[in-house]
């Protein structure tokens, strides 16, 4: 045992350090293979398969070893050799076998035989299913044009580019993107700073965690460890968010902001910093454009103005602004929470300007533009070279204004607007929607409208591993393999590339998401664009820049780790002159400087300076509603054990969070005679939910919040599922879908704020 204990105390850091010192292109395989062999011999009867976790994604997930016994996937261990997770894994990762073998798995393709919504299907073969889809798409392309097809995007996946490729080959620009998934933030940062910066946490003295949840989202991927190491090292940590989540619990200061008012706080901080001349005047003079216009503009956004909006005392705003401006270096770790509001673009732009004028941009310990990777980038399958202006003009409901498309990800229509087009026929009705790994009735706003649109829609295709919330409206259901049942694709990010390995044989009559698009492409007659139907050729083609085949990559069990490019700070002239993805190839920043005043926005009819925009309903925006709906409401987008609208059917995870809950302050609960664990009715001007009260002293007394994405039941625990509409637990049913108020005017971000009343159910 003593021999064991010494090995036990070898920290993960040592292993990673060893990996990190290898040269570009050097393999970890030598050590890894020995390690693998050693463990294999210690555990007879059990096979270990190195691969990626797939409980979020598929994307470059965390490295895992999947254990297989008698052909059954049994348990999991973190891959220490992975530079992404270094052996760490979250709760979801460990529940993978229960997810793979869950009774809700789809086993074979289905074709609807009953009425829409009724749930009557007949079993068909993979080829029959593809034939039905291909015939419909060909017919519609001829009758209505290829743009009558929209494909909904889930969160970024490694198959996202396959959706684009199919759309490119078919001729439709309508990639439906949610409007609240990092791309909004990326857009606003890029059109202000030239790129989206990341916080240099290890070298900072002050860290602001703003609208971000580092524990529930990617806890194993390094960011959380950096935060905790910074905490141990004495860095001052300030968290800005409405509830006291676990990252707030370990921080030094909590700024309990009212949901959706980050723009107001950032504007008031700018007011203090500019008024008190706490900015870096040299950086401002040399590298920013329009500061003097901001000086005048910002006068009205005082801390006293922001106090009733944000719910943060003016004195605390002043102190926060001074602390941020005076502590050098300081960085802001920004999250997607900033996007979920009609002032999304302004919030992110104001925060970008804070980073810039305080002189914290691209400096050690500030917010930086990382140096990149020494890895040759695998070939994209997107077919970007085919974009034309006509293509952009055909977008059914642009996610970003047409003048800014194609964007970093490609062309995109706002997810909700695709459904709206079905109902209104404006500008034209989408006729077929394909939903691969995404559930519109729990992922976007206006649930009633979405369900109505699904009834009206000509043709709806669900491509998924599991029963989905609105699967009963589908004309064809295509089951696909989980990523534990397929040996592709390779995944890469940063400095690491690895082949995915198959853990078990598929449990049913299906192939992978990737093979679905390839097979459908071939059936449509787009054979040449789809590698003549060969997934192997597809993978090998993408790997050409690395001079590798998939099998050669697979021979290295833990993949290849490359060295990062050395970090250089102060790359202002390079970053500020980056060329945009638009057809004009005009730079993101026309003046080659930080666009405090944004002339590109001005030319296109948008606000050139960040401005405050009230959420559709709020205490300060619609005070007349407070009598009927006295509490601010918003939802959490991430959770420790679930992803979006998924995983509630997994028993080990559902045991941790068995019920949808309303986080409510003890005072607000007491006023309503509500006790912890009581079922409560939550009612907004648009919808209603019945969920359980969780009395939480760590939330603003004027605010209640709930986790989004509840609909699934859990058979093994005899826990119920929930209605998508009234008496359910669907936070999306609570919000406005008024285009004039509920969406950011530039980036179409969906507001996650409203007012509610809470009563005992």
């Amino acid at each position, binding site marked *: 045992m003593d021999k064991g*204990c010494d090995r036990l105390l070898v920290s993960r850091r040592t292993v990673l350090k060893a990996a990190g010192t290898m040269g570009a292109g050097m393999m970890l395989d030598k050590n890894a293979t020995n390690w693998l062999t050693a463990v294999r011999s210690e555990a007879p009867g059990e096979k270990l398969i190195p691969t990626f976790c797939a409980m979020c994604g598929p994307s470059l997930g965390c490295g895992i070893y999947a254990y297989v016994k008698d052909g059954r996937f049994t348990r999991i*261990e973190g891959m220490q050799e992975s530079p992404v997770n270094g052996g760490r894994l979250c*709760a979801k990762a460990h529940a993978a076998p229960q997810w793979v073998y869950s009774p809700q798995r789809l086993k074979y393709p289905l074709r609807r035989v009953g009425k829409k919504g009724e749930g009557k299907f007949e079993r068909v073969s993979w080829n029959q299913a593809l034939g039905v889809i291909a015939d419909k798409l060909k017919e519609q392309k001829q009758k209505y044009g290829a743009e009558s097809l929209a494909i909904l995007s889930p969160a970024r996946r490694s198959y996202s580019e396959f959706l684009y490729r199919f759309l490119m080959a078919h001729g439709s620009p309508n990639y439906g993107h949610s409007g609240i998934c990092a791309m909004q933030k990326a857009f606003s940062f890029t059109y202000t700073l030239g790129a989206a910066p990341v916080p240099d946490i290890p070298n900072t003295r002050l860290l602001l965690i703003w609208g971000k949840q580092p524990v529930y989202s990617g806890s194993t991927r390094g960011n959380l460890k950096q935060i*905790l190491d910074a905490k141990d090292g004495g860095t001052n940590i300030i968290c800005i968010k409405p509830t006291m989540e676990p990252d707030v619990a370990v921080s030094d200061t909590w700024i309990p902001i009212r949901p959706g008012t980050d723009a107001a706080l950032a504007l008031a901080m700018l007011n203090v910093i500019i008024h008190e001349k706490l900015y870096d005047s040299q950086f401002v003079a040399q590298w920013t454009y329009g500061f003097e216009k901001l000086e005048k503009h910002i006068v009205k956004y005082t801390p006293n103005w922001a106090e009733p909006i944000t719910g943060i005392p003016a004195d605390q705003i002043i102190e926060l602004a001074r602390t941020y401006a005076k502590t050098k270096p300081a960085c802001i770790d920004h999250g997607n929470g900033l996007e979920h509001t009609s002032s999304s673009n302004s919030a992110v732009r104001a925060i970008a300007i804070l980073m810039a004028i305080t002189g914290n941009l691209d400096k050690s310990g500030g917010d930086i533009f990382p140096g990149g990777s020494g890895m040759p980038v695998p070939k994209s399958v997107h077919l970007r070279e085919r974009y034309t202006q006509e293509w952009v003009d055909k977008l059914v409901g642009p996610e970003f204004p047409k003048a800014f498309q194609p964007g970093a990800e490609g062309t995109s229509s706002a997810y909700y607007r695709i459904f709206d087009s079905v109902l209104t026929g404006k500008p034209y009705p989408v006729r077929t929607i394909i939903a691969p790994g995404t559930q519109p009735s729990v992922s976007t706003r206006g649930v009633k409208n979405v369900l109505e649109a699904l009834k009206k829609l000509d043709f709806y295709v669900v491509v998924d591993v599991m029963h989905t919330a609105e699967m009963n409206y589908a004309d064809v259901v295509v089951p696909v393999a989980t990523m534990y049942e397929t040996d592709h694709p390779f995944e890469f990010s940063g400095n690491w590339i690895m082949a995915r390995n198959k853990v078990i044989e598929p449990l049913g009559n299906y192939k992978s998401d990737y093979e679905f698009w390839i097979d459908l492409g071939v059936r449509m007659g787009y054979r040449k664009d789809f590698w003549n139907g060969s997934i192997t050729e597809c993978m090998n083609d993408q790997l050409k820049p690395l001079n590798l085949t998939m099998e050669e990559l697979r021979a290295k069990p833990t993949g290849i780790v490359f060295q990062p490019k050395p970090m250089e700070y102060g790359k202002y002239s390079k970053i500020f002159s980056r060329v945009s993805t638009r057809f004009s190839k005009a730079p993101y920043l026309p003046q080659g400087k930080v666009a405090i005043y944004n002339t590109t926005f001005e030319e296109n009819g948008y606000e050139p300076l960040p401005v405050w925009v009230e959420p559709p309903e709020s205490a300060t925006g619609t005070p007349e509603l407070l009598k009927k709906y006295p509490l601010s409401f918003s939802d959490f987008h991430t959770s420790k054990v679930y992803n979006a609208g998924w995983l509630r059917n997994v028993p080990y995870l559902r045991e941790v969070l068995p019920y949808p809950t309303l986080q409510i302050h003890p005072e607000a609960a007491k006023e309503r005679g509500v006790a912890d664990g009581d079922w409560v009715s939550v009612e907004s001007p648009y919808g209603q939910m019945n969920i359980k009260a969780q009395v939480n002293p*760590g939330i603003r007394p004027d605010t209640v919040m709930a986790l989004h994405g509840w609909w699934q039941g859990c058979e093994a625990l005899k826990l119920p599922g929930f209605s998508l509409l009234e008496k359910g637990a669907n936070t999306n049913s609570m919000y406005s879908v008024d285009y004039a108020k509920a969406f950011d005017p530039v980036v179409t971000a969906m507001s996650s704020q409203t007012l509610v009343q809470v009563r005992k159910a």
Partner: protein
Amino acid sequence: MEKPMGRQYGFYFDSDRCVQCHACEVACKSWNTLELGIRWRRVVDLWAGQFPKITNKTISLSCMHCAKPACVEICPAKAISKRSEDGIVVVDSSKCAGCRSCTAACPFHVPQYARTGTMQKCNFCLERLQQGKQPSCVATCPGEALRCGPLDVLIESSSTRKPAERLSGPTIPSLLISGRLKEADLLEILASKI
């Protein structure tokens, strides 16, 4: 207990690095294929103060593998024993009669009962330990809040890193805690939550 004791193994918990993600809890269930409803490890939190001056502390608790385990002493069937080589407390379910005397004796609400009615609890992932691996909970911890090993080594390493205190109490639990959670907080948690 007659044999001379080897080095006592135990856990180290840094409450300033625990972020209540429950990865340890689920890693334990999955690795040990636990029945639903059974928890060998649990994450419990403690709130104090009034908005906005609130504190929230957390602990991840499992069997403490006490130096003087009350469960071993009380078990009439002698189903629970303390390993001489590493002090790990283990249960022989073939001997357990399911009388639940250990539940009454354990100050930490550790014993769990599966459908068979016999007691089960954390065994320090002995099978992993024998392969030179950390228990599943420790290996997975995203915040690196949990560590384990021989207590003397843990105490020595904590003296150069962060001060840690070994829990007191008549059973002498093999758990070191560090950070903002103190022993008094743990007693409060144990008094109110199971």
